[in-house]
């Protein structure tokens, strides 16, 4: 870790107040000051609280810069949220949210007090898990060829060159395989959701990333159900051991289940 003093991305120009900006990580319910250590973004800034009534914003000092979503920055943001999450229910802020001053942060808490309070109640003792499922397309296709008579017959005809038109047969085979793949994909996805539904409070499907992914979902889980959820994920991943790869992450703050539209404007 570098020294906090040398870690600023850009030293603030002279004649301007020193590092007054506040990077906000999340909102929690807490009415007395607390220090979370020197783990903040920009090279280990001190992470502390800014208060309004029984709400607190978790912040660290920052120059007024735009944070690129580099891995280093994103990991710092996540690390703070993970640390806070061990003790508190959190409402995570979007990556890169910087306010000009402590007063502006207080104003955020004051003006959004009711919405923050409601969401904190709803999210009490709930955590998020991420589940990405990728498939081995070739293996799934090989499986299809074994199970689907029509695909097997066509493939056989093409390979023995007895189809009346190999070109046409190939086209037909391609279409059949695509349709069958789609069917298999939605069956897998439905099956996984079905298995996890009893141990989750809610789930949300996000856009898949890359061409191997068939499921990119987030699950909201009661802390008391963490073990049960864990076991279910393991069980369902064993069921598809040869065909699917499960990427299971968490616990996260409920990024996918908090939807407060903050009315923020630029403060340049």
């Amino acid at each position: 870790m570098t020294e906090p003093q040398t870690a600023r991305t850009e030293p603030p120009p002279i004649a301007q107040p020193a590092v007054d900006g506040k990077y906000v990580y999340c909102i929690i319910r807490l009415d007395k000051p607390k220090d979370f250590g020197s783990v903040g973004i920009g090279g280990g800034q001190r992470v502390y609280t800014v208060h309004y009534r029984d709400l607190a914003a978790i912040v660290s000092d920052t120059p007024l810069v735009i944070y690129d979503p580099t891995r280093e920055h994103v990991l710092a943001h996540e690390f703070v949220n993970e640390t806070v999450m061990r003790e508190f229910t959190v409402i995570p802020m979007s990556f890169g949210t910087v306010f000009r001053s402590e007063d502006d942060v207080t104003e955020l808490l004051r003006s959004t007090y009711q919405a923050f309070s409601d969401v904190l109640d709803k999210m009490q003792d709930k955590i998020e898990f991420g589940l990405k499922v990728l498939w081995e397309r070739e293996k799934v296709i090989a499986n299809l060829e074994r199970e689907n008579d029509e695909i097997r017959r066509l493939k056989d005809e093409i390979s023995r060159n007895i189809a009346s038109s190999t070109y046409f047969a190939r086209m037909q085979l391609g279409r059949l395989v695509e349709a069958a793949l789609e069917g298999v994909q939605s069956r897998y996805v439905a099956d996984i959701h079905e298995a996890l539904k009893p141990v989750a409070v809610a789930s949300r499907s996000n856009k898949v990333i890359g061409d191997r992914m068939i499921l990119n979902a987030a699950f909201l889980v009661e802390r008391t159900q963490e073990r049960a959820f864990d076991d279910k994920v393991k069980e369902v991943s064993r069921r598809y051991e040869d065909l699917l790869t499960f990427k299971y992450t968490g616990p996260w703050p409920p990024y996918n289940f908090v939807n407060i539209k903050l009315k923020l404007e630029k403060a340049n």
Partner: protein
Amino acid sequence: MGLLTKLLFFPITGPVAGIRWSLGKVQRVVEEELVDDTPVKQELMELQMLLELGDIDDDEYARREAVLMQRLRDVREWRERLGMATAGGPVRVAREAGDDA
């Protein structure tokens, strides 16, 4: 007609030509999606996935991340220049009409 002639005798063509140039440029920027960071963010997520799957190592990640970050900054710069909304930088709670503050 040389540049000097233009400067000396037709000062008016300067700004007019300038405006035409920048309008054409705006058109091109919009068409080429230089003001949309969605594809860059998509690529960033794919890159992250490759790293998590072990398909690329840390060095390769850092190298490709740097390229994507530069593209993000370029997009931001274009959007600022064209007066479009940009993400990032200091914010404050928006003051609404009729707010008691």
